[in-house]
């Protein structure tokens, strides 16, 4: 029995390791904020010329995509959760599939559809002049971009709402029906108000994805703040102004997060009132069923079927003369980097989640929470932060003649992925840790075993499937990631995403099909893994 000094208890291996990990993950963001104070002469010019346009475009996309995503997600989630109709099971999962399509790949497939609007634009020009035709062209371009982004991002809202509608409101649905209310009235007056926190959480994710968007907005020529960072940093070579734009983006994202947290806090009574009683679905006649099937099919057709069919067609057409050997080499390197990073990241997330549970120290918990904010911060900001940080370290190392060891290396890109996607693995693993009862850890300790034994012999075996599932999620996200990879990849290194984007930018639209299809296939596979994981979680109890 080794007594310890109570004052010294707070500083131990777990605390030190967790704090170091968290600070390392936070370092790029801190580097961005420090960099803001660098002097720049261009800022005033940027602020008065292009900044209002960047802000306006970002806001238009945020509101447009937010609105259309809600229109896609809310009715479909309600239909699938509430009604029993032919093919319901198929639509339940088909509605998730657009999530597998990267926004830039969807943008490739819709880009030339814009050409169909040219006769209309010419007619408008002839009738009302050049100014009016420009407005119509812009309206169609922005509308198309909003539609395609919404059609691949709405599943963020759909997934969480479907779960809320089907699992957590059974008793309220039955109570409403017993009071003589029709399902539509229950939806409007009970289900939707109760689902508001979930809706806002999903919508926040959609908005953050829109703010983060680079590939699609670049192809459609709609310069947002993220595109602005690229142009300022790499086009103009003005790093200080780029960092200032990055800080504006971070402030917008934090404002969204703060609003989401405030709403969640205000509506806490809703969470407290939820129950686990599942409700029985209402059977529908075939006429109503077909209307519902139409509503379910619409976003799937726009977000998944159309892009995939076009890509398949292009892939078949592009087989002649396509550099398969080069493609396979790049694909193998891309898959290798993504899988190695995803595995390492998931193990670190597991360690962080366990340590937070073990320590239970609110300051350490908050630090870890802050360090996993990377997903909320646009990836181009993360990339810029990592560049600044690693360049500073390289600068220090150059004094001992080891210049440019970190910048432009695979380590840099791997580290940036970890900063960005840590929360993708951390949040589910943290939730799973709660599933593995706290009492199991306490039981382990009262049986004379320390934290390490508890970690390796209790939590690891119980959660290894979850760790693998998280690694799969991260792997898919890394494969789809574009702006961060474009900024940080070594000069001779391509991922499937940069490979496809590079072809599309150069006008080889058919050649971008195969890498895009490979990313989508991996995404579909990942979503099926998640489905299994969700089923397993649902049946697991401690």
């Amino acid at each position, binding site marked *: *029995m*080794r*007594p*310890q*000094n*109570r*004052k010294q*208890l707070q500083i131990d291996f777990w605390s030190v390791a967790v704090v170091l990990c968290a600070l390392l993950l936070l370092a790029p963001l801190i580097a961005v904020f420090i960099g803001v104070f660098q002097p720049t002469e261009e800022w005033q010019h940027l602020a008065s010329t292009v900044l209002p346009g960047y802000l306006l475009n970002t806001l238009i996309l945020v509101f447009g995509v937010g609105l259309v995503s809600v229109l896609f997600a809310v009715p479909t989630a309600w239909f699938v959760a509430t009604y029993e109709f032919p093919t319901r099971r198929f639509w339940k999962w088909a509605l998730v599939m657009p999530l597998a399509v990267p926004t830039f790949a969807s943008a490739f497939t819709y880009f030339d559809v814009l050409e169909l609007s040219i006769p209309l634009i010419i007619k408008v020009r002839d009738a009302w002049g050049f100014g009016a035709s420009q407005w119509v062209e812009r309206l169609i371009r922005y509308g198309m971009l909003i539609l395609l982004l919404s059609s691949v991002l709405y599943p963020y809202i759909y997934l969480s709402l479907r779960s809320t509608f089907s699992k957590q409101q059974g008793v309220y649905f039955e109570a409403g029906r017993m009071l003589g209310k029709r399902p539509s009235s229950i939806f409007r007056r009970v289900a939707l108000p109760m689902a508001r926190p979930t809706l806002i959480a999903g919508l926040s994710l959609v908005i953050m994805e829109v703010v983060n968007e680079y590939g699609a907005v670049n192809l459609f020529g709609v310069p947002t703040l993220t595109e602005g960072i690229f142009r300022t940093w790499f086009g103009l070579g003005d790093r200080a102004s780029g960092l200032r734009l990055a800080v504006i983006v971070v402030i917008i994202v934090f404002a969204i997060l703060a609003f989401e947290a405030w709403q969640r806090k205000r509506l806490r009574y809703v969470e407290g009132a939820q129950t686990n009683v599942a409700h029985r679905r209402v059977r529908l006649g075939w006429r109503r069923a077909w209307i519902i099937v139409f509503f379910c099919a619409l976003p799937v057709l726009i977000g998944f079927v159309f892009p995939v069919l076009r890509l398949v067609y292009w892939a078949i057409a592009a087989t002649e003369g396509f550099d398969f050997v080069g493609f396979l080499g790049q694909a193998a390197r891309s898959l290798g980097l993504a899988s190695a990073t995803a595995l390492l990241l998931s193990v670190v997330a597991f360690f962080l989640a366990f340590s937070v549970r073990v320590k239970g120290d609110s300051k350490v918990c908050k630090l870890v929470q802050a360090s996993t904010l990377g997903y909320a911060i646009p990836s181009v900001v993360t990339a810029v932060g990592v560049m600044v940080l690693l360049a500073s370290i390289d600068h220090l190392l150059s004094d001992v003649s080891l210049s440019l060891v970190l910048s432009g290396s695979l380590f840099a890109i791997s580290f940036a992925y970890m900063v960005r996607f840590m929360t993708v693995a951390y949040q589910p693993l943290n939730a799973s840790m709660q599933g593995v*009862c706290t*009492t*199991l850890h*306490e*039981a*382990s*300790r*009262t*049986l*004379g*075993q*320390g934290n390490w034994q508890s970690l390796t*012999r*209790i939590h690891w*075996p*119980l959660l290894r499937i979850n760790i693998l599932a998280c690694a799969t999620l991260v792997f898919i996200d890394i494969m789809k990631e574009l702006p961060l990879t474009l900024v940080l990849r070594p000069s001779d290194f391509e991922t499937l995403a940069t490979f496809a984007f590079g072809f599309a930018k150069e006008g080889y639209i058919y050649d971008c099909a195969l890498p895009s299809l490979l990313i989508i296939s991996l995404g579909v596979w990942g979503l099926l893994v998640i489905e299994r994981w969700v089923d397993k979680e649902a049946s697991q109890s*401690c």
Partner: protein
Amino acid sequence: MLEVQNISKSFPGNDVPAVHDVSFRVASGELLSLVGESGSGKTTLLRLIAGLEIPEAGQIQTNRGCLFGENNWVVPEQRRIGLVFQGGALFPHMSVAQNLWYAMGKIPKSELQDRAEEYLKLVQLNGKANRYPHELSGGERQRVALARALVAKPDIILLDEPYSNLDVALTADLREQVRDILHQKKITGVLVTHDPADARHFADRIAILRKGVLVQLGLVKDVVDHPCDMYCSLLIRGG
């Protein structure tokens, strides 16, 4: 022996302390029941003794020395205090035998098996070593939890409402078994319960907690016959 002196503990956001200035002593081999209504602080007190919570003030001592005092605190895994959780808290991915082996630490495999068999026999579960927790009944799970706590050879066993999920007949049977085993092994035991029958039949002495304060402590017969006030009377006679 277990000696608790002036132990206090509050939780953030609660004006009333969960445990306030509680003192008592349990002699070696003695069994004590801690009784109180929900929220009286009895489970918190048990967790403070186990080391799963850190007290704000006071002292905790056993035969091995001071577990908590002015400037020292011994981590749970080094206290040699066993805790039987409500529901058992068996590791679901381990068989019954593996649950017991986990508590034994690093000893030769043959000894692991012999000791597991010995303790499973003690709790009348011979032949169930290879079963998994989900293949056992509620009573069997609680007996495995007791065997697992005992196999670590603790000085003191704490039982946190171990019979709360069991039916009346099974509870009475299991209560007698646990009492006999603890007497046979000469282990000091503290049972936390809100059931007066559990408290009366398990222990040599009873301590009654109310809003974190120890309001009565005495031999079972004394407390049952002479409760100090109406609260204790209702609580221990099952009002």
